[in-house]
């Protein structure tokens, strides 16, 4: 199964700015999830959006899903230096019992 594509690969912004990361895929999905990985640490689940949902919010996070375009985006508003990390989308493909991860976006938030 193909890994998803994420863009940009790397993003550098100033504190207070918004950060947008995109994820594209080619399969049929049950849901799409976003994870965060701090340097040298494990992945932490951020948010899950089901295939019949279009938008979801959690604190400063906003996720959208467009199943017709097979794409999702993660928006982090009012970014903070502590948001510096790698962000991965992960899809739950129909009929598959493991998540397939995208290539990740490395976000650097400058204080």
């Amino acid at each position: 199964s193909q890994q998803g594509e994420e863009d940009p690969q790397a993003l550098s912004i100033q504190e207070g700015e918004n950060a947008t990361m995109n994820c594209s895929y080619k399969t049929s999905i049950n849901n799409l999830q976003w994870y965060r990985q701090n340097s040298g640490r494990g992945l932490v689940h951020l948010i899950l959006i089901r295939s019949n949902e279009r938008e979801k919010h959690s604190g400063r996070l906003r996720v959208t899903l467009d199943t017709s375009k097979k794409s999702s985006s993660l928006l982090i508003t009012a970014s903070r230096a502590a948001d510096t990390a790698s962000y991965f989308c992960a899809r739950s493909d129909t009929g598959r019992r493991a998540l397939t991860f995208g290539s990740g976006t490395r976000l650097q938030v400058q204080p």
Partner: protein
Amino acid sequence: DTAVSQTPKYLVTQMGNDKSIKCEQNLGHDTMYWYKQDSKKFLKIMFSYNNKELIINETVPNRFSPKSPDKAHLNLHINSLELGDSAVYFCASRGAGANTGELFFGEGSRLTVL
């Protein structure tokens, strides 16, 4: 009270050696996974067990052998280590009846083969 714990965190060894990584979860989850993260940060599924039964076995060399003595533990044994096995190996778990839910990851085990 770490949810998913892996040991060791770091492992440096010579080519040809055999090594094991252990994983334990105290979340009461039924399904556990091993993922491999390479130097470019790509994460790839290797194995999955559900209640001690192997349910996913991706195209992984048979030098890699997972073992699940009970549903709270999933260990990974690697024989005849090669340079290309150098990576970070992550254990993860997922709750019962949650085929599509979130994964809980351990902190990773960084394997370096010299």
